[in-house]
């Protein structure tokens, strides 16, 4: 794994996703590469705008969506104070980034691998698919609420077999869960399921994986202060009920090794 670092880098591009005229709440943020030679998809980075000042003492964690020689890309949904400040960035503004952090997803070649994404949980899978040695063994199922245009879905659908299911109303949920389980069944033998998304989504995946004994990894989200394992603010419980830092020991955990 590369040496992680903390750097001030410039915004190369910031783009609001979607087709509406109104600025949406979904942003694609491309930064200068802070000197990362490689990373493992599923890893994340902490971001803060250089001009945030002190009101928000913490950076914010985001999945690294892709990395190339010049740049690194994040997809950010505006939900609060930090994300709305990030959404006001403009090309040339400076951002403090530290990463790559955490462990990332397994990527065994040749293994039938199902990528389950909920909402912005799709972000890390872009780089995952791009970097996978046998992308033909991958398949994506994407559950989402707002329009597909707000997510980096189409670009992924060009690379792997992909299917999107929209949740229009809460009544759609049972159907979505049924569909997820149906597809997961296909990976019960010798396959791998990777999931990233909101906690209820992960819960569905974990419960079914444990029940059917399917090998699965889930990527957790917690509020993070340091991102590097120091503050002990982001812990979850392992199978024995012991606290472990999501930022340092995760964010990706085997479904069998973590309590949601």
């Amino acid at each position, binding site marked *: 794994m590369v040496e992680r670092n903390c750097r001030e880098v410039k915004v190369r591009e910031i783009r609001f996703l979607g087709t509406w005229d109104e600025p949406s709440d979904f942003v694609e943020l491309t930064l200068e590469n802070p000197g990362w030679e490689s990373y493992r998809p599923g890893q994340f980075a902490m971001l*803060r705008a250089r001009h945030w000042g002190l*009101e928000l*003492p913490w950076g914010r964690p985001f999945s690294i969506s892709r990395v190339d020689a010049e740049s690194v890309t994040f997809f950010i949904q505006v939900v609060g104070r930090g994300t709305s400040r990030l959404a006001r960035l403009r090309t040339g503004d400076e951002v*403090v980034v530290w990463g790559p952090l955490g462990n990332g997803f397994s990527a065994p070649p040749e293994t039938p691998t199902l990528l389950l994404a909920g909402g912005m949980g799709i972000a890390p899978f872009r780089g995952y698919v791009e970097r996978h040695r046998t992308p033909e063994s991958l398949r994506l199922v994407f559950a989402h609420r707002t329009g597909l245009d707000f997510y980096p879905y189409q670009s992924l659908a060009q690379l792997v077999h992909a299917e999107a299911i929209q949740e229009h109303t809460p009544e759609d949920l049972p159907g979505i869960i049924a569909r997820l389980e149906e597809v997961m069944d296909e990976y019960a033998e010798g396959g791998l399921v990777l999931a990233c998304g909101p906690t209820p989504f992960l819960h569905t995946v974990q419960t079914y994986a444990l029940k059917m004994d399917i090998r699965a990894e889930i990527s957790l989200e917690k509020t993070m*202060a340091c*991102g590097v*394992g*120091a*503050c002990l603010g982001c*812990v979850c419980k392992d199978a024995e009920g012991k606290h472990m830092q999501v930022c340092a020991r995760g964010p990706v955990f085997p479904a069998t090794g973590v309590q949601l």
Partner: protein
Amino acid sequence: MDLRVEFAGLVLKNPIITASGTFGFGLEFASFGDLKRLGGIVVKGLSLTPREGNPMPRVAETPCGMLNAIGIQNPGVEAFLRDKLPLLPWRETAIIANMYACSVPEFGDLAGVLAGEEGVAALEVNVSCPNVTLGGAAFGQDPKQIRKVTEAVKKRAKGKPVIVKLSPNVTDIASCALAAQEGGADAVSLINTLLAMAVDIRTRKPTLANVLGGLSGPAIKPVALRCVHQVCRKVSIPVIGIGGIVSAEDALEFILLGAAAVQVGTANFLRPDQSFRIIDDLPRAMLKAHSDSLDELRGSLKLP
């Protein structure tokens, strides 16, 4: 510029020490800066036996600050000595053990375990953690208890410097400092966090599972400066300033009041290289105060 500081038997490269609980066991930050460059590292609070800490959520961001109620999650003093200390550059940088216990004898025992370790430069006694018992007045809120704990630790410290860390959640912090001095403390460090709380109106619940937590960060710097000022005027032992320091200028403010050194806590979350940046910046900040000597600056506040 010479940034060295000496006090309480410690010789530090510079006055910037990372604060307990905000810098892990140091190793978490090794890829963001050379740990040998730090004046010192106070490790996460250690207890005699491992502790799982408080339930989640344990932290909350507040305006220019944060709350924490970690509950001293730690692997226990033995695991620290076995697994962490050997990896730290303790010959070059002072490694200070932060001690957490719930009774006077326990404090004594903890001191006994740590005192024999070459790699431990000093003991910091946390009598002030407001997180652990809901609403609970801690040791640190009663000068008599502070004195007792200090004596117990000092007795077992085998000559290692004992630093007593004070709580600001008291009517008169100077009396607490005096009690530590009378108990034989080699230095006091202050402040620990302010007892505080946050509420989520959507869920109608306290944001922290522990209900109460400790407030830290830039928000509390003015309170920390006041406490350090009051204590510096009362005690003769060295004072380590803590609370809301995010820049070299902030550090100098405490030194002007008379602090021998400072600890940087929440600022380590602003960005993981912040403590190193503060050290880099110190000479420039000293020039702003028209000085190239920390000794000249220390305690040189002009009072009306």
